[in-house]
């Protein structure tokens, strides 16, 4: 099902926010809408958005590539994005990432076999003083988890596995 078929009203509302000659500005909110669907923007959606905004699919893909919160590839239901910049590393973020991955039985960047969780190292989440810190990105949006330990994280993953919902 195309986005236009599924979200006709929402698309109309988004497009109405921008003057018709600058409708390419609607790219960001439309990508957000498309990503809500599967946690990433597939080729089909990219082409559809490109056509809607009269730009090339390449320009759409470039936007997804540039912004770290847009994804062009499928991943787990929940993305755990661990900050590994220098100040966080000084507070043990590197070790936290390695231990968490070992516990989940995946490599950094990998997804658990049940497709539940993907763990990704990212740059600066602007919360150095509360490292190890990660951000989760999933169907319920984005949330920060500060002063984390592997144990607390595993509890979070377990809760998600049972309830299907992320515990804030």
């Amino acid at each position, binding site marked *: 099902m195309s986005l236009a078929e599924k979200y006709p009203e929402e698309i109309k509302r988004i497009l109405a926010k921008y003057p018709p000659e600058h409708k390419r500005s609607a790219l960001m909110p439309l990508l957000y809408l498309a990503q809500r669907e599967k946690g990433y923007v597939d*080729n089909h959606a*990219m*082409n559809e958005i490109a056509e809607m905004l009269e*730009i*090339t*699919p*390449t*320009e*759409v*893909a*470039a936007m997804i*590539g*540039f912004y770290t919160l847009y994804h062009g590839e499928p991943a787990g239901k929940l993305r755990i994005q661990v900050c590994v910049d220098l100040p966080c590393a000084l507070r043990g973020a590197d070790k936290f990432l390695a231990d968490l991955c070992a516990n989940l039985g995946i490599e950094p960047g990998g997804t658990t076999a049940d497709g539940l969780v993907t763990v990704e190292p990212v740059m600066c989440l602007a919360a150095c003083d509360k490292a190890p810190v990660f951000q989760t990105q999933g169907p319920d949006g984005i949330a920060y988890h500060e002063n984390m330990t592997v144990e607390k994280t595993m509890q979070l993953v377990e809760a998600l596995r049972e309830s299907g919902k992320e515990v804030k």
Partner: protein
Amino acid sequence: MTELVTLSIDGKQVTVPKGTLVVDAAKQAGIDIPVFCYHPKMEPAGMCRMCLVELGRPMIDRATGQPVLENGQPKIQWAPKLETACTNVVSDGMVVLTRSEKARAGQQEILEFLLTSHPLDCPVCDKGGECPLQNLTLDYGPGKSRFLYNEKHHAEKHVPLGELIWLDRERCIQCGRCVRFQRLVAGEPVLAFDERGRDTEIITNSEPAFDSIFSGNTTDICPVGALTTADFRFGARPWELKSAASLCAQCPVGCNITFNTRREAKSGGRVVIKRVMPRQNEEVNEIWICDKGRFAYHFTESEARLRQPLIRRNGQLQPASWEEALDLAAAKLKAAGKDALILAGGRLSNEDLFNLKKLADGLGAQSVLYTHVGGGDLVTQIGLASGTNLADLGKGDTILVAACDLYEEAPIWWLRVKQAADRGATLIVVNARATRLDKHAGYVVRYAPGDETVTLQGLLKQDKIGAAIREAGNLLVFYAADGLDLNGSTSVAAACANLLIETGHFGRPNNGLIGVWPHANDQGAWEIGFRPEADLAAALKGKTVYIAAADPAGDDPRLAKALQDAGTVIVQELFQTATASLAEVVLPAAAYTEREGTFTSGERRVQRYYPAVPRWAETKADYVITAEIGQRLGLDLEAGAPALVFNRLTAEITAFAGLSYRKLAEVRPQWPIVGRADLYYGGTTYENKQGLGVHLAAAASAGESPHLPEVRKGSGPRPQEDALLAVPVTKLYDLGVTVRSSVLLEARIGLPAITIHPLTAEKMGLKAGEKAMIGLGGHENEVLVKLDETIPAGVALVPRSMGLPVSAPAPLSVGKAK
């Protein structure tokens, strides 16, 4: 008068127009500032930081507004850090140091940094030898790197960006020249950056990949070996190549090119063309060429070329000697006398056409141009005058494009018209369907098939469009035969000519009529006196026909039938075409790459091309073949050299008066400066040292007043209620003799397809991408179905030169494929 600014660069006083960038000002003064991302044809981006210089401006006293003096000299306020020469605009009294210790250190550091993620695989890199990064490393780079990366940056090395261009991600330095070219120059943003930082890479997501007809140009301006063409990749080292100046023979724009050739074992010891490169002519193609020009040259060295003369014996074409073939051709023509007919194609040079015309005149025979675009006589009267440059058009000027799909028919004109529109020129597109130019047009006028002339005649009566035409500072009109046959196109030409004459836009530079011809030298044929024949089939009846560089039988089964019914057929060709197969005598011609000559472009610019490779097998140049036939008929035709034929031509044809090969070879300094040792600046485009060409004098600029041509009252056929009307359109990549030999373009040529309105398709039970059977001109063909909602219902677009018999609008039947 432009305001001038004086500054000092490396101690040299330089005066340049206000607004000039420091990097260009230096270049004009002969000082090279190294660049990677900056390109003189594009706005600066300031991404690569290679052009770092020390930059200072005179200090101004705030109280008095006067420069602060120190020992009688203005005191210079130096910028605290190095600045990029490509993003800074010159100002009065500015001081620039490009080779100071500080500047050099900055440049060195940038290079050192770039090299940390570059594979340095120069020995196997196609760019090696003409690589800006290689050259600049030698000039500016440190001998050693201080970076001790055990893990060098690794990335994919063989990424096809479509069938024509390959990307090596390791070599890419992310200068963005290709991305910016596609967006800013070509207007086809199908390349972009993915990711960021050290992960930045070039991507294309278009379908087909890298969907642009200008893609080859990115390999010229790529400052490293990241982008290479599928044609030249691993083909040769640049220093092994010889170059020959030439022209592209694919369309009437007349792009200046250079053939790079090499003698090689791989080709049996023959000298072969290894690649086609653009050659700068700022008034014609600037420094660009389209992909058809770059990748379709293979026909000139195809193994399928005719090798020796053929004569029909016992119903079979059999090899013969030149003596036999020429004797027979001459005898047949002599016997026919004024019942002979000479049919020539626009692929021939001015010299070939002149000899053919003299032969026809000697026989008293008709000389016919094989074309589907009419009105060349009007172009002779009110065509473009000397001093014309599409790059001069902008605000206040108007360009009208009528019955023409400029993108498919003449890409570089499309590019330059689009750029004129970007600069503010008013673009009016008049056509029966949407084309790629509409997006850039100020006004788009659509007509129903059959209403083309009425619509053009009515333009002046429309408020805004009428004013845009009448009040235009300069008015250029392009026309062709989109959806039309020769008659329709002739009417369109007349209507366009009337617009120009009525509003007084002719006889001066940047004003006039341009025929978008199917071939490189149709305009030359018109100038020399060839005229197309509205009913060619009837004209051929009973004639002894001498056909050069045209394949009527291949294009249209009715013409094949007419040739079978004609008397003797003599064919002079490169290939054993359908027409040649009907001939009594076949004369193998040399390709234009194997000889000298001149073409007259659609802008009426006469330009020279030079021999690039030796003649193939036993072929002879067209003008020689014709002259040798003429000599057998007792006619005095020149076979010595093209320059000698040209001298005769200039003496006889008024428009060519005063021209000579020497004059055509004259050059003037051009901006930007390209093709010298500093390849980093403009790319690998060749500098033009062999001639910029000369415009023919338009009759109107000589003071002759043009006569208002009569516009045909009747209209072309219209679609009927219950039948589809097939209308011919031109496709860039078709199966013409000059394209089909290029293996590279196979996918882009694709299968024959017709385009219809979605509602028409629905009515016929057809879907996009499905196969269908069409009946056209008594023939059945299998085609693909494409949909386009901008075309009128009841009309089917049928491409020319794709094996479908469509020379004029005609009824079409469509059924399901078997």
